[in-house]
Each structure stands twice: as structure tokens, then as C-alpha cells.
């Protein structure tokens, strides 16, 4: 498709750099406000959120580097909000519907139009996305082993949650009535709103200082700039078609692996990424909707474009993506998708890098742990007289690369959340951490060894529901160029007496008081043949 050749004021290299710095600063400042005012440990302690600025057409202009899985998918949210709602000054839209711009239900995105004085059409948009620790559904934490999206929680198409500057009380109430920890949700939503207000105020101040036409031109120029950077990066990769296959262990209902296949065609500064041949969507919740696949592709390509590149829509222009509808990488309603965001996204990254390893063998790492090992524990805390819902992702080993042994116990690829401090966890939840260490001997051997996984074992002091959503428990993280595979993960229920019972990687279970859940996460693959 040819881009319209609109007349644009020229933007010189200096203005480009200056505006890039200012836009990024606004997105970062929004992130500071959101992180500091949020209520839930998931947002504040683990920083599971992202903030971004968009131009008047809903194209991403700047995004603060928080969580990669949000990167490519936030634009779809903003466009869905614009398409479905007429956003007037002071309005804010909320949404989480994976089939209307969202990723998975716990990720709630808020979108605020930024109007300039006297203008009806928004000049720009501010948006943020935060992972809420509970959004209703069949199990606390909303990450259960579901088969339909209806079981996963409250589904929110774009709706106005703030109208003309005042909270839409009815929408708030509807939202809060469908979640398990009401006060926390309300506090987190308020924090998201506060962050948007800061973003909008800063953008207006920038327009007042620099001029409307200048800022508009700069937003366009920044996207063009990112496009040029990405083209330059793609030209560094030899032309050719690179294919790879990887697979998910299973969807929690069947035992058969679920293959993902990709073909990447690199051609003179362009990349054509085609997932045709990947498995049909599945019954369990590991379906990735299109937004996830787009995000994962965006992430991989941004990694390949080494050095600082602005996170905006221009980066994706040289890349075309084919993800056939109805497959595991572009699931259609009413597929369950909670795990697509956290697990399948990692496998999409793995398969993309596996293909690119053939093109750039010295740069690409072996497979990392490939699972966020999502653990949700919830129930009624009789000591504190309240319901609780605890969610955590557990890191694993990083894959090794030429000259770089993999790091151990580190979050890789699509997530970068922090762990919940044990001293916070034990003070606020009826749980006790009994072990948290590096899982020795779990790395892939190699000239450069992979990183090791983690062991995290938690004792429940009350009866609780446990949901586990994990991968790489059967199909190990691969090595590269003769390097060995990382160890598969393994999960157990441990009785008070110490008896271990293997737990399925995707499972809901009831934990008796005194019982423990033990998660052993996968290691990373090695790089190059190990010396004997």
C-alpha cells in the first residue's frame, strides 16, 4: 500500500532528537505516576503496566519501556476505543476485550483523548494498560484453566469510564461488582486515570510551548524516523527466507503438542512474517489473539534493531504480519485467551528467534525458559477476615548467546515484572514462602551455558484455590549450534508431611492448610558445543 504523500513541514535531525526526548519523557512520567499511586502489589511492586502517547489518528508515538507484551498491542486498544466511542473532552475509555483491542482480560486499558482548546477532534491520545490482579471469572486471579472467554472474567468492550471529567459511577459499579477485590481495583483504576491526566497536561503544555503544527509534524516525523531505523536494521540481516517450528506442551485438556510455525522473509529492509501452518486454536486458554502475536513480533524486531529505537508505530511499517484467523496465533471468539498473553507469547518469540538464528547466528540467543510459570492463589483469609488473590510470575533461565552465558532466575522476553517481596507477601496474604532459590543443574550445556531456572515453594495457611499456567514442562528450551537444551520445568503439590505429588502444568487445584505448592522453572538453552 502506498502512503499518501501529504505535505509535511520538514523536520530536521535536531528537532527530531529533541522531540523524541520530550515525547519519551512524557510517557515515562505517566509511568511514574501510575506506579506510585496504584494500590495493588501487582502494579506497584511488580510494575505490570505500560504508558503511551498516540497521535490524532491513534498511531503510537511514544511508549515508556515497561512491559514488552504491551508494546504492539496497545495501539489496537486505542484504535478500538476511537472506532467505537465518540470521545469528548474529559472522557476516558476503558476496555479489556481481547477481541476488541485487548490482550487478556486482566489487562485493562484506559484511553484518554487529548483535546486542544476550542477543538472538537482530539489532537492526540494518552493510554495506559495495567494488569489487574482479579477481573472476575471462575477462579481468583482470572487466570484459570478456562475453555471459553466467558469463564475468564468480565469482558469490557470500549466503554466510557469517565465522562466529561467525572467518573461514570454506573460503569465503575458494574466493573467493581465483577471483581473479587473491589477496593484494590478502584484504587488501581484511579491511578490509571491520574496517569492519563498527567500525560494529557504535559502534551498540552508541549503544544503551547512549541506550536500545534510543529508538534503534529514531529509526531509524524518520529514515526518515519523509527521506520528508517527498522529498515536499516533489517538490511543488516541477509536476504532470504528463514523458517522454524516450535511447540506448546499442550492446552491443559489434551496431551498433544501444539505446533507454531513461522516463515520470515527478509528482503532489502523489509520483513514478511507468516505464521501459516500453525495449529488451529485450542480448547484451553493458551490461545493468542492477534494483538499478542503482533506484540511478540514487534518485540523480536525491536531486539534485532540494536541500540535505542523509539517505541512507535513506524517500527512496524517495514514488517508485514500474516496470522491466519482461527489459529493459535489469531484466535477468534469465544476462545479462552488468558494464557495466550503470558505463555503463547513467549513461544511466538521463541519460534521467531529460532528462525532468525539461521540468519544471524552470532547475535541470537538460544531459547530462554519460555514460560512465565503463572501462579495464582486465592481464597478467604480467615486470619484477616477478607478475600485475597495473589498472582505471580516466576522467572527462569535465559538462553545463552555467543560470548554470553545465560543469566539465571531472570525474566526474559515478553515480561519483566518484579517478584513480590517475601516479606510483603507473608504480611498481606495467608501464605509462607518455604523456598526460593536457583534451581541448580537446570541449564543447557554449551560453550556458553544457559541460565538456570528457579525453585519457589509456598505454603498455604488456609484452604485456597491454586491455578497454575505453565509451559516448557515437556518440550525443553532449545540450545543453538550444538548447545544443550535447558531442563524442563516441574511442579508439585507437597503435603504437610513432605509427600510430593506432580501437578499438571496447567491445573486448578485445591490446597489444604499446610500444603505447599512447589514450582521449578525451566532453564535456558546453551550456545555452541560444550568441551568435554
Amino acid at each position, binding site marked *: 500500500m502506498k502512503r499518501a504523500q501529504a505535505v509535511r513541514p520538514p523536520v530536521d535531525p*535536531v528537532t527530531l532528537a529533541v522531540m523524541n526526548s520530550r515525547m519519551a519523557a512524557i510517557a515515562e*512520567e505517566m509511568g511514574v505516576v501510575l506506579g506510585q*499511586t*496504584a494500590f495493588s502489589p501487582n502494579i506497584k511492586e511488580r510494575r505490570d503496566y505500560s504508558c503511551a502517547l498516540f497521535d490524532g489518528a491513534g498511531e503510537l508515538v511514544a511508549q515508556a519501556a515497561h512491559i514488552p507484551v504491551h508494546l504492539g498491542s496497545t495501539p489496537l486498544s486505542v484504535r478500538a476505543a476511537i472506532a467505537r466511542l465518540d470521545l469528548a473532552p474529559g472522557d476516558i475509555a476503558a476496555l479489556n476485550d481481547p477481541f476488541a483491542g485487548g490482550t487478556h482480560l486482566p489487562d485493562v486499558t484506559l484511553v484518554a483523548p487529548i483535546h486542544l482548546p476550542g477543538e472538537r477532534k482530539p489532537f492526540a491520545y494518552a493510554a495506559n494498560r495495567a494488569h489487574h490482579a482479579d477481573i472476575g471469572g471462575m477462579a481468583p486471579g482470572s487466570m484459570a484453566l478456562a475453555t471459553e472467554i466467558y469463564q475468564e472474567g468480565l469482558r469490557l468492550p470500549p466503554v466510557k469510564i469517565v465522562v466529561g471529567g467525572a467518573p461514570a459511577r454506573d460503569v465503575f459499579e458494574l466493573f467493581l461488582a465483577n471483581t473479587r477485590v473491589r477496593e484494590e481495583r478502584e484504587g488501581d483504576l484511579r491511578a490509571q486515570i491520574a496517569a492519563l491526566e*498527567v500525560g494529557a497536561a504535559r502534551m498540552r503544555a508541549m503544544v503551547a510551548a512549541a506550536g500545534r503544527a510543529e508538534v503534529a509534524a514531529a509526531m509524524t516525523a518520529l514515526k518515519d524516523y523509527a521506520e*528508517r531505523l527498522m529498515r536499516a536494521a533489517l538490511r543488516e540481516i541477509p536476504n532470504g527466507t528463514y523458517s522454524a517450528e516450535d511447540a506448546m506442551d499442550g492446552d491443559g485438556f489434551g496431551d498433544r503438542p501444539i505446533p507454531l510455525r513461522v516463515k520470515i522473509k527478509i528482503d532489502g529492509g523489509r520483513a514478511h512474517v507468516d505464521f501459516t501452518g500453525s495449529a488451529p486454536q485450542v480448547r484451553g486458554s493458551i490461545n493468542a489473539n492477534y494483538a499478542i502475536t503482533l506484540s511478540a513480533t514487534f518485540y523480536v524486531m525491536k531486539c534485532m534493531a540494536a541500540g535505542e529505537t523509539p517505541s512507535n508505530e513506524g517500527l512496524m511499517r517495514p514488517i508485514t504480519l500474516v496470522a491466519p484467523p482461527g489459529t493459535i496465533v489469531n484466535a477468534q471468539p469465544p476462545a479462552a485467551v488468558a494464557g495466550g498473553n503470558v505463555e503463547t507469547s513467549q513461544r511466538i518469540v521463541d519460534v521467531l528467534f529460532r528462525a532468525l538464528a539461521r540468519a544471524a547466528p552470532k547475535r541470537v540467543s538460544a531459547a530462554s525458559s519460555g514460560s512465565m510459570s503463572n501462579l495464582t492463589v486465592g481464597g478467604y483469609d480467615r486470619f484477616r477476615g477478607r478475600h485475597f488473590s495473589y498472582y505471580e510470575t516466576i522467572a527462569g533461565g*535465559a538462553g545463552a548467546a555467543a560470548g554470553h552465558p545465560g543469566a539465571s*532466575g531472570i525474566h526474559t522476553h515478553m515480561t519483566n515484572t518484579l*517478584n513480590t517481596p517475601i516479606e510483603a507477601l507473608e504480611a498481606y496474604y495467608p501464605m509462607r514462602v518455604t523456598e526460593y532459590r536457583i534451581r541448580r543443574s537446570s541449564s543447557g550445556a554449551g560453550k556458553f551455558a544457559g541460565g538456570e531456572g528457579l525453585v519457589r515453594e509456598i505454603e498455604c495457611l488456609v484452604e485456597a484455590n491454586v491455578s497454575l499456567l505453565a509451559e516448557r514442562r515437556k518440550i525443553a528450551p532449545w540450545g543453538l549450534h550444538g548447545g544443550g537444551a535447558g531442563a524442563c520445568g516441574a511442579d508439585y503439590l507437597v503435603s504437610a508431611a513432605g509427600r510430593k505429588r506432580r501437578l499438571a502444568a496447567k491445573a486448578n487445584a485445591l490446597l489444604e492448610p499446610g500444603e505447599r505448592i512447589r514450582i521449578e522453572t525451566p532453564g535456558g538453552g546453551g550456545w555452541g558445543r560444550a568441551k568435554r
Partner: protein
Amino acid sequence: MVVGIDTGGTFTDLVAIVGGEARVHKLASTPHDPAQAVIAGIAELIGGAPAEIVTYSSTVATNALLEGKGARVALFTDAGFEDLIEIGRQNRSDLYALAPSRPAPLVGRSMRFGVGGRTLHDGTVQKPIGRAELAAIRKLAEKSRAESFAVCLLHSYANPASEELIAAALAPAGKPLSVSHRILAEYREYERLSTAVVNAYVAPRMVAHLERLESGLKTRRLRVMQSDGNAIGPALARAEPVRTILSGPAAGVVGAAALARAIGLGKFITFDMGGTSTDVALVDGAARVRTLSYPNGYAVRTPVIDIHTVGAGGGSIASLDAGGSLRVGPESAGADPGPACYGRGERPAVTDADLIAGRLLAGNFLGGRMRLDAARSERALAPLARAMKTDLAGAARGVIRVVNANMERAIRVVSVARGFDPREFALMAFGGAGPMHACELARELGVRHIVLPRNPGLLCAWGALGAPLGREYSLTVRDADPRFARLRGRARPLIARARAELTAEGGRPASIHYDLRADVRYRGQSYEIEVALSPRFAVEFHAAHRRAFGHSAPDAPIEVVNLRLRAWAEGPHRGSRRVSPPAGRPSPAGRVRIAVDGATVSAPVYQREAFGAGARIAGPAIVAELSATTYVAPEFDLRCDQFGNLHMEAR
């Protein structure tokens, strides 16, 4: 007679007050043994008479950490949690690195020892440490090759008994001992652990250094600057050297604040632009302090002055990237080869742009001791100018604008992002390149007043000289139904400890100030706001929350997480600074052509010494001095105050 000293990487600066008069001295540092320069400098400055108080900023702990030359540490922690020091918070610093990495843990795997007790969050000892195990620890400590021990157990802030048992078992080995709750009695185990380990890592070097210093110095009291701007005595510096890691920059901010007080300035932002990096800090009456920093990538939770550093300065290299944007830094020409105009480098740096723009005078660098090669700057910048499709002057202007944008972002981090409006603040510019970029930066930020301190190279030594004796004490209380009286009661042991420690270091009990504060949050939140602990602390908290984040919930339950006590005794009197002689009209030493907003104009050049108290000129102009050059933009007036500081004010 009191002395303040800043030991930098290159020079050691000293200031002394002798009979009410200030004396200054500068000599080369002795990095292999920083004590030598300190001892020699004092002898050269004040002779053989013993000084009453010597306060200095130490780089010993800093360098041990930055150079990776700290001690072999053995760590004692809960069994099952030995690797926490390596796992950290599970995150990575660079999201898009093809191979993520993090700094190597300061304790190797074979030096981590698990201990079998367990304390719970409410302080209950669920499982005590057995006698046999303590005996084994004692034996292990005696045989160990470790040079330093760290102890950190879960929930030790709630009950330190188990940590103390281990400490008692380790003590007979006679090695530096870092016990987590003593340094930091706050919850969040990783940060407390990392702080204790960093402390253990730098302690032996600090101990040896202080020994050399004390044996060579004839002084009644020796004090060491901490990262929060207060000074402590040698006993505390030996026990908790982690508190001194950022002492140099902190002394600079304290010195700047002292100078500002003398001229009646309460609100300002320091802008210290050097060769490879730039430090900025906001002072609103007092310097702002934060509680978490990451020196060299390692988490340290002790109070530090909130100084934000960006990797851009005079040596930052300019280039056009693959997308056609001008980049300045983070790559730096450093001191070697240095910017092209120093005579060795080939690539254009910010200093080259400053030279071409006329703000830096080729013949006046370091008082004329080093001549800058302007032709070489032009040769280095020419390819960039061609790529930018502009001339040399245009390219130079562009480089300056981009580096200023980096500075502007840094200043926004410490002001706007913390809820301050930079327009209400003055800019205090120093460092080799600061005064050259201050006017344009001020314009972008809406700042109307710039202060150029006299003798900026001595700010750190001045800061050390008058630094208060004091430190912060904290305790996690996690009180979900906070009452003032009860909190006040829980703070009593902190106050007692502060009184004992500061009195031991020479503070008069009657002169010690106690500032008791509380970290408060809404129940369920996990970010705290610090307010004074008064009977009205809850009201203060709601107001502070509204101020910082735009909303508050006065009906929502609140929780007090930590108590903080800042205790300090006034430092030595700095004396009155010498007043500059009143001046006639300063006359320019020459004229130079400078680039101003796209045009080239002729501007006068003054020597800084030409300005006496009350002297005034209008921009555009250049003011040259030994260590820096000031660019006075056309819309600024410049005047000299009675202490010899220069002020630029927007017309």
C-alpha cells in the same frame, strides 16, 4: 580550626577556617591510598596544629564497588533462600537486549550459607536457630577465607533476635560484620540483603583506610560524609561504609545549599555538567533525599541525596544515526582522546560544538595553559554538518540543542516528575560545561535566574566543612491502625540510639535535633509518602497524597509502614565568606564572534576576576575563568553579588 575536604579522582580540595578566615588548597589525589593526599593537604594548609574537626567526602567505598575490588564476603541467610542475592527482583535492566545480563553477585555461590531458623512477619520466631548450628557457624567463621561477613534473615526488621545470634557467633572471628537490621530495619528482603552485602563488600577497605587516616592525622574529631549530606564519625563509617558511597556528589549539593542560604536563595536546581556525565539535584529549602539507589547496578537502600545523573557532558560524541536523527552521547570521548579540539580525538564532541559556536575560547582553556585546536574541531564536525545538510555553525548549534534536551529531560526527572515546577527554581550551574549551557537550558525550562557560584570547584569541600553530624534511623512497623501516641512510643528506642551514637561522636545532647517522620500509605497501596510524625500526621498524609498525585481519599484507612528518625547536630560554622571588593565597570578583555540563534554576532569577553560586587553587564557576552566558561545569552543580564557569585537573570 575546622577543615572540609573533597577527595576526587584527580584532585583533593581542602577548605579550612582559621581564625575566622577561609583558606583553600588543592593537590593531586593519591588514588592508591587516598589518605596520603588528605594528610599531606592538611599539613600544607594549616601546618602542624591539630584541627578541631576534619570532615571529608570519601571515595574509598565508592571505588571498591565501581572497580569491583571489594572484599571476599561470606553471607549467612535463611536456608532455602541463599540465592536471593543473585535472583534480585527477577527483572532485567535492558528490555530489548538480545542477551540479557545483570551485574555479577557480590557473593559467590560457595560463600552463601543457609541457616535453619525462621522468623515470621509479626516477629514470632517460628523456628529458633539450634545451639549446634550456632556452634557450627562459629567454627566456620574461624576457618573461613572470607574477609567480611554479611547476615540477613527474613523479617529481621520485626525481630532481630536471630540475626543477633548469628552475629554473636561470627564476632569472635574479628572480621567486619554487616547485620541487615542494624543498617536498615525495613521490610523488603532483597533490598535490605543487598544493602548489607554491599556494606560487607566495601567494609574491609574502609576500615583499613580509616586506620591509616587516623594514625596520620592530628585531629580531635574526624568525620566522614554520607550520601545523604550528613557526616558521621569514624566508628559508624567503619561499621556502615555503605552510607558513604555517594558522599562526594552529596557534599557538592550540601555546599551548594550552604552557598544558596548565604545569598537568600531557597529553591534551586544544581546543574553540574562535566566531561562525561551531568548531575542534577533539586533543593527546596533542603536537598531532597531518596532511600533507594543502584550504584554500579547494586541495590542500596540507605538515604541518598536525590541526584540524577545522565551520561552526557562536554565529551559526549555527536553522530547521525541510521534513521537520520542527531544523537549526542552516551558514547563519550572522555579525557583521552577527548574532544577533537584537545588535539587527539577525531570525532566531534559537545566541546567542539561549543568551541565552534564561540562559547569556548581557544586561547583561554584552563587559564591559557592548554590551547584548543579550533581547526581540528571544524574538521571533526564537517562530515556531520554535511550529513545534516547544514553548515558548521548549524551543526554546532544542533549538537548544543540536542545535548541541552538531554539535560532538560534530566532536570524534569528531578522536578516535574516529583511534583515541582522548575519555573519556581533557580538554576545553579557549575562543572566545566554547565555555565556554557545554562542560559539555553533555563529558557527551555522557563527558569529565569541562574547562579554561577564563585570557586565552584570548592563546593564539595565547603559542603563537607559545615556538614551536620547526623544520620537516619528507620524501623518498619506496618501499623494498620496507626495512633500517634503508640507510634511515638515505638520511636523511642530509635531516639535513644541516635542520642547515644551522636553524643559519642561529639554532638552535644542539647544541640541534637530529632526529626521524626512516618512513611504512610492507604491500606493496600504499596508506595509510601513520608510525612512528619505529629498528632496531625494523617491529615498531612491526605494533603501530601493529593499534592503528589492529584487525588486523596480522606475516608480510606491508612497504614504507617516505617518510622524514620533523622537526627543531627549542627556542623561547624562555615564563617563568613570573603566579600568581593566593590567594582567599577568591568571592561572586556576582548571580543569574539559567537553564534546566537542562527546568526553570528560580536560579543565582549570578560575575565571573571573583572567582576567586583555590584558589577553588571548585559548579554550577549562570554565570561572566562580558570575552570569554566560562561555564555550569557542576549536576553540575560549578568551581575556579581557581594560574595563574588555571578547571577544571570532573564530580562
